[in-house]
Each structure stands twice: as C-alpha cells, then as structure tokens.
C-alpha cells in the first residue's frame, strides 16, 4: 500500500520555490512516500554574528528560543512537541542558526508541532530564570570543551585560521559571563528577521498546505536586515601552536580559510579533495598515514564552504611519540598534491565515485532537507543538485591543479598539536 504511492525512482529532487508574504525564501520538495514532514527554518544568525567579547551569544540565543513563547511555556512547548511524536533539533554553525522539526504528517500531530515551532521563532519571551540556567549550561559546556583534546584542537585551530574574525571565536566562561538577557533580545531582533529567513519543507504535504505552513512560520517575523558576515582577511603565513595535554594521542589539525559557498573553484577543489583526503580508503592521506604506516585510525581533509571563506582542514590523531613523523607526513602529502595534483587515473576514479554515488546524497528525506536548506540559505541555483553530477564530470585535471595551486598554499596552513610530544 505504501509502495503504490511512492514517487518514481530516480526522479531527482524537484524544488518548488516561492517567497512568503513576509519575504522569507521558501523551498518545498513534495514527497508522499512516507507520512513524514520535515521542516527547517534558518536565519543568518550563526556564530559569524558574534562579537569576540561576547562569543557564544548567537548559540545562546538559539537555545533561548525554546525557553518559552507568548503562547506556550517552556514545559508546554516541549510537551506539545513530544505529544505529537515530533523531534526538534537545533541547527547551528558559523553562518546559520535555526531549527529542524520532524513530524508525522497526520494533521493533528503536524499542526500541534508546527504551531509550537512557529511561536518559538516569532514570539519568544526569553524568561530571565531560564536565561540564567541556559547560560550556566553554556559555561559548563565551554569549560568541559577546554579539557577534551579534540575540542581544544578545533577551538585553537579556528582561532589561528581566523584571527579577529568571528569564524574564529570560541565561547568561554569569560565571554559568556558578559552576556545579558538584553543582549539575547537584541541579537534576536537583529538577526531573526524575514529578510534572511529560509524555510525548507520536505515530505507529505500538499503545496497549499506547505504555503500555509510557510506563512505560519514567518508571517509574524520582523523584517530585519540581511547583512553579510565580515570579510575574512587572508593570513600571510601559517603559525604552529603546541598545547600541553596528558592525552595518550596527539591531536593534529592543519587548516586555512579557503572556500566560499558560491565559489567558482568549488567543484575543482571538491573533486580534487576526494583524492587528497576526502575519499576514505581511496584517498592519499588515509593510504599514507594509515594503510602504509599504521600511524592513525583516521586521517582526512575536507573543505567546508561558508558564506565567507570556510576552512580547508586536515586532521589526524596519533600516539604522542610518533606525532612529529605523522605531521610531517601529512604536510608532505598535502604539499605534493598541491604541487602536482592528482594523476589522470586518480581523477577518473574520483569522478566515477562522486558521480556514481550521487543518488546516495539524496536517498532520504532528511538528506534532501539538508541539501535543499543549504541551496536556499546560500541562494544557490535551484537546479544545483540536478547539475551536480555534470559539474563533477566536467572537472578537468588542469582545473584541479590550478585551483589547488592558487587556493591552498601549504606555507599558510596553521597547525595545532594538542597533547604534543614533550
């Protein structure tokens, strides 16, 4: 019975796009194969909009949206969502802040869950008592992070890659201590407006119902302004930081600010990185570091594009006494790749894998939600997913070499080693 109504296989992702009365961007993918509706509502309100002095404000504001609204107290809101069998998740990164809500599509459950989300987003009260509690939780988490070697490595590397830029800020007990309830209200008013609100809806809903839902989620938002994060200033030279920690392994990270979401070099870098460190056992980093020498369980590289130049990052963890060798090896693999690029055979294999594996990127509603939410937020063309295989296929050896040579200077990689050898 369920199978009879399934969408035809291989139809790709058909995105229906419109602008809500509020001005919010809406993307809708209709699919009736399962009785589920997934919704994401996101704003340009990530940590890019923090100040160094009050780092952590953006994430605290998002947490506070759940703490009570004009219609529902914090307890009522969480019960309404649970009673509907729905799941609410915070989405937070450098650029974006918002929620993803998964609900059954039956009307009573869906309506109860979506109404609750709509009120959280549009009339939060930021109760003082809950604010103190959430702030204390944030302080506890920040302090805990400072004791865990993997978290310390990440926090230090971002600070090195983005000096003076909000992408590099990490919240600490000091920055959190300065944040007041009024700061949260101000941050909300400035960044949770319809001007940059993006609504993504995937699942078992008619187009009319999706329209109504998008209005319900955004019609009461203030307009707000859509301002871009501060530009990233390129570092002229990478620095190395060694942090003492009694861990059994050294946690090694290398990185540099590199790639924006709409970057013309996106595909050459993405495809090239498959061979360097993105393709698991097919990648040079894992082969050299793990397969040939047994230095580490995992060794990888990735590009994480954001509105401004997001990081190119290389990482591994290895026993302390061999950390020097492992780091040098990783650097030489990256250096060699930047200098010569992949071989013809490697590029061909990368493209085969990425093109052949494309269906796996969109084979669940949740994956579709994430892909389409990014398309919406970064204003990518609506056919971005449809074009993906052809764009990958079109990448040439010369493009990969040129892109890496221009965009990744191994000398500019910042390096952090936590639990460094003595």
């Amino acid at each position, binding site marked *: 019975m369920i199978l009879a109504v399934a969408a035809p296989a291989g139809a790709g992702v058909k995105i229906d796009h419109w602008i809500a009365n509020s001005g919010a961007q809406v993307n809708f993918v209709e699919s009736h194969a399962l009785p589920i509706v997934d919704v994401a509502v996101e704003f340009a309100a990530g940590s890019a909009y923090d100040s160094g002095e009050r780092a952590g404000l953006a994430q605290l504001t998002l947490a506070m949206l759940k703490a009570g609204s004009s219609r529902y107290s914090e307890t009522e809101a969480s019960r309404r969502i649970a009673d*509907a069998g729905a799941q609410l998740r915070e989405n937070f990164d450098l650029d974006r802040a918002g929620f993803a809500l998964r609900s059954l599509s039956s009307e009573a459950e869906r309506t109860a869950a979506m109404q609750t989300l709509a009120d959280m987003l549009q009339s939060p009260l930021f109760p003082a008592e809950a604010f103190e509690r959430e702030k204390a939780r944030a302080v506890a988490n920040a302090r805990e992070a400072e004791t865990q070697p993997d978290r310390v490595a990440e926090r230090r590397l971002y600070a090195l890659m983005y000096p003076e830029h909000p992408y590099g800020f990490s919240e600490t007990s000091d920055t959190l201590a300065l944040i007041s309830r009024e700061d949260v209200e101000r941050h909300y008013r400035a960044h949770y407006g319809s001007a940059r609100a993006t609504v993504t809806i995937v699942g078992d809903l008619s187009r009319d119902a999706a329209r109504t839902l998008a209005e319900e989620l955004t019609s009461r938002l203030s307009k707000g302004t859509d301002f871009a994060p501060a530009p990233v200033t390129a570092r002229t030279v990478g620095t190395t930081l060694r942090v003492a920690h009694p861990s059994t392994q050294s946690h090694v990270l290398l990185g540099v600010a590199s790639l924006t979401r709409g970057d013309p070099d996106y595909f050459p870098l993405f495809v090239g990185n498959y061979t360097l460190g993105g393709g698991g056992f097919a990648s040079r980093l894992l082969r050299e570091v793990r397969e040939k020498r047994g230095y580490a369980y995992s060794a990888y590289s990735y590009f994480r594009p954001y509105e401004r130049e997001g990081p190119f990052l290389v990482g591994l963890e290895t026993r302390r006494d061999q950390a020097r060798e492992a780091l040098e090896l990783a650097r030489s693999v990256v250096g060699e790749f930047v200098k010569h690029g992949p071989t013809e055979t490697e590029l061909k294999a990368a493209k085969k894998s990425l093109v052949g594996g494309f269906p796996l990127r969109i084979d669940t509603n949740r994956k579709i939600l994430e892909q389409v939410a990014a398309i919406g937020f970064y204003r990518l063309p609506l056919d971005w997913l449809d074009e993906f295989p052809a764009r990958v296929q079109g990448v040439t050896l010369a493009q990969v070499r040129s892109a890496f040579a221009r965009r990744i200077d191994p000398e500019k990689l910042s390096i952090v080693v936590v639990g460094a050898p003595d």
Partner: protein
Amino acid sequence: MIPSRAAFFALALASGVQANPHEFTLPNGLRLVVKEDHRAPTVVHQVWYRAGSMDEAPGTTGVAHVLEHMMFKGTRRFGPGEFSRLVAEAGGRDNAFTSTDFTVYHEQVHRDRLPLAMQLEADRMANLVIRPEEFAREIKVVMEERRRSYEDRPRSLLIENLLATAFAAHPYKWPTIGWMQDLENMSWRDARAWYKQWYAPNNAIVVVVGDVEPEKVLAWARRYYGALAPKAIPARKALGEPVQRGLKRVTVKAQAELPYVRLGYKAPVLRDVAKDWEPFAVSLLAELLGGSDAARLHQVLVRERRVASSVSADYEMISRGPGMLFVEAAAAQGRSGAELEAGLREVIARIAADGVAAEELNRARVQLLAQLVYKRDSFFAQALELGELGSSGLPYRDADFIPERLKAITTEQIRSAAARYLADDGLTVAVLDPQPLNPRPASAAVPGAKH
C-alpha cells in the same frame, strides 16, 4: 485525544506491507532477508555474522573487531584495499562495525551495483588472506582507534568501567574493541583462527533493503553466496550472569570539567515475542525518563533543580546477552557527582513508588511509535533492524508486532517493571571524578625539598 490517534496511525502504517520483508534460506544455510522499498534508486547490502565480542575468550578480547579490520586486507582474488576501491569506483560506500553480538559489513550502492557488492562480500566470506605484515600494521591502527575512542575519552572510559563492574561472568564485561594488553599480545594467528571458526554462510545473514526485486536478489545470492561451503559452527554454551545481589559502584578519574554519572540497571531483553511484555515496558520507561526535553529527568534535574546540564536514557530490547537500561547525566556547573547521582536515583525511584500518569505514558508511547515511522526514511536503519532481529534469534517479522505490544502496556505494568528492574539491587553506579588538566607540581612550593 491526540496521542492515541497518533498511536493508531503509526500502527496501521507499520503493518501496511504484508509481503515485506521476504525471507529465503540457501541450501548452504545462508539466510537472506530482502525488503523492497522503491523510494530511491539505491540499495543497502549488509552481511551479519553471528560472532561478536561476546564470543571471545579472555586473553584475546578485541579479536572480533581486529578481524573486521583484516577483512579489508585482501583475498586470494583481490589485493589489500581492492574491496573498498571497487565499491568506491562504483559510487558506493562501504564500511563495517563490530558489536558485542555480531560483526556487520555493509555497502550502499546504486541498485544496479548490488551484484558487485554481493560478489565482493561472498568472496571475502570464504577467501580471506591474512598476511602477517598487513596484520602488524593494522593492529597498530586498532590500538590508535582504542586510544582515540577510549583512552582519551573520559565518558567512554566510564562506560567501559561500568560494564566491567556490572558483569561478573558474562563476556559483556569486556569492551568490544578489546583491552589494550590483549591487542598488544594479539597475533595474526588469532585473527585467522577467528575467521576460520565463524565466517561461513551458515553463520551469516544477508540483509538487502532498497529498490530491488526480491526474486532477482535471490538469484544473485544463489550465484555468489550459494557456492560457498558451510562449516561446522562450534556449539555455543548458554552464557549467563549470576543474579546481582546489591549495588555495585566504580569511580573513574580522568581529565574533565564536569562530574558525570552513568547508571546501569540489569534489565530483561526480548526472547519470546508472544509472551514477553517487560522489554516493552522498559523501553517506555527509558523514553519517559530520558527520551526528550519533556521527559522526567530533563524536567526535574536540568530545568527545575539545575543539578544536571544534560541527561539521557537508553535501552535496547533486542540483544543476544543480558540487557541493561542506562541513564547518564553530566553535572551542572558547581554540582558534585554525589548530588547528581542522588538526583538521578531519586527521580528514578519515584516511578516505582508513585507510578506514572496515563498522559506521561502516552507521550512516551507516541514518541516510540513515531520513531518507528521515522526509521522508514532510511534504508540503512531498516536493514539494521532486520539484521538485529535475525542475529538475535528472533523472527524478522517481529518488527510489525512492536507497535501493538507497545500500545498494550499499561501504567500498572510500567510501575511493576520499574519496581522490579529500577531497583538498587541490580544497579551499577559509575562516576567520573574529573581531574584538573594542569595540576600544580606538588613539590614546587614545598620548603626543604632541596634537602
């Protein structure tokens, strides 16, 4: 009322497809389970071997997992690393995991490439070559994996210590990744012996979920797996655990900021699908204690009393060995491990003492039923469910009974299950005692140290 409507709704959905999944057994004993789902042109292929760390012996703990690593190191036909290279070039993803109960190898591919995945898995089911020099490198990788996942992760160390304390006899007392000294002492011969003992078609279940036709999958299975010879699988002793007669406790010191507490209560698991009701009651208990922000532990300990900064609960009713319900919590800033533990145990004890409201039970029930629906979004999750049932000796179609059984549980059964299982006599308390990161050198300011 809204909750019960959702319950009926999910129930109708879960029993909607009668012919699915399809089950077959090949003459060599290999079991094949195929579930058709045509939502996307992809397929998940999983091979479940009924051999996990509970089948190991002291001295070679971790060998099930080490062998899992060696399975990527080549066969008589394919060289080391070829397996993953071929899957990757086909646009697929492959990996594997080892648990206490089984070892699972899996590929996700476009539906047209399923035969390749089956061919490769069938090949390494019988033709693995374990080269001593490959083993020597790979065992180092496994030790790095252990350092990364346990030695440097205080909360993982706590779990490891909890299990080592809770179980006196059952092999669940050692970690699946193995003790470090056993990894240091392991030889390629241990891995080879493990492979010879357990890797055979009659100790495996192949699960396929996705955009496939069952008859075609059966034909491919016959072609690739059908030719493999069965082996005599050693008789398995029933492994028990003596009744725990009182609270056990363990403390772990490690670098961290927040005290952290994990409670483990001995709990039943599903054995007789027709009769057992307790595992369903315990599932609901875990959900109403720690399933969401609306659940008791979060309400009381995070929001009201501010003793905890985070809490959760978890319980798996399907397991080859004895079950446990776990509750874990991190302390709020400035709160001690003792306060946190007292808070957790008080909230838990109240259920046996006072029972639960119908509304609270319904909330937990609706959430579990909705999760069953959400699971259908992922072929991989559906395959995991089928493989787990099969490897644990339960009929595959039992997934369909779960909603009905959950629906039948009453508030009185919840109270009674809490009184029986959430009691101190079957409890193990594990407490993380956080150590400062940079302790002051003890001798620095001691007068007279120079003498």
